[in-house]
């Protein structure tokens, strides 16, 4: 059972397999993980709860990762962009809207993601 005072992560990805695998792995490491399937879903979840870390995919239907970041960057929540794309424009936009770390989905192990989350929380 995850303690209710453990850090809260919002994992935003339209691919349910990624959300499940990475999300369950982070939960097993003691975090409280909420998943959202696109930017709009994520905004609704943020109304109901505060989060300590955002993990955001860029390409999603309805509301993309960049559009979502534009709306929330003023909250200054540490953000990991977690994507398979490497376009320079995506990277520049994401940095502009508050992304601290870029990780490549699929190539980042669950341990590496957990390590990155821990570092961001401690910084």
């Amino acid at each position, binding site marked *: 059972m995850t303690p209710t005072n453990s850090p809260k992560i919002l994992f935003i990805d339209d691919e349910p*397999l*990624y959300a*499940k695998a*990475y999300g*369950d*792995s982070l939960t097993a490491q003691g975090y409280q993980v909420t998943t959202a399937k696109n930017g709009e879903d994520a905004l609704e979840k943020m109304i109901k709860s505060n989060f300590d870390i955002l993990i955001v995919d860029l390409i999603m239907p309805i509301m993309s990762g960049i559009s979502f970041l534009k709306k929330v960057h003023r909250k200054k929540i540490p953000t990991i962009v977690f994507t*398979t794309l490497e376009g320079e424009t995506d990277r520049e936009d994401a940095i502009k809207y508050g992304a601290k770390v870029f990780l490549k989905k*699929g190539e980042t*192990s*669950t341990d590496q993601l957990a390590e990155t989350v821990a570092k961001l929380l401690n910084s």
Partner: protein
Amino acid sequence: MSLFNDPNQSRILWHDLKTFPSAATICLETILKNVYGEISPQLQTLIEDLRCTAITQTIQLENLSIIQKSTLQTLALTDIRRTIKTDLDSALNYLSPLLKSKQISTTIDLPPNQTMNGDARYSTTILQNILYIIIASAGQTSAFNISSKSNQIIFTITNLDPEITPLIINLNKTTEDLLYTDTGPIDTQLKLAWFSNELLNQKLNQLLAYTITDTTLTLLYDTH
């Protein structure tokens, strides 16, 4: 008009094609870490094999997408001098779960500033492909060494069969280079070699070692 001719649609299409095998790799890794409960040794072996297949497919799709984009000149390949170790670290990092599952110890004896030319993304993908082939072919608890000698990088696995027949692919750097292209076509032979399933499934061959100089790519295969 083909979907692949439109750069934006092509980008999305490749992204969609890579999603399942990439996501499957992580799901299977999570299962192997017993996040959903302990699994039996037989199931562990099966899931490990599935994960290897998913990694192979992801790498092959990445290769295909880079080759397709650079052939259509929609991908600008940059030619800069970089340290080899940076690309190797990146490729090995991706394959570290596989190294760990086979208990393969890796040593790297490279001067930290040894450099090579090429596009970072392309060379990392090629290295991932090569390293994957080597690691997938290796037995349990092999030792894997990456070293250099003048202009060569040498990848070796222990327990080499002494009766190997070298397979040499010569690539003239001034025309069709392994690691970068001036937006020209990539060597067809190399293209076929690197993403053909036949290479990976070829029962006679296991890639045991690989060397690259400025002009020559040498692959050593066990043909027995």
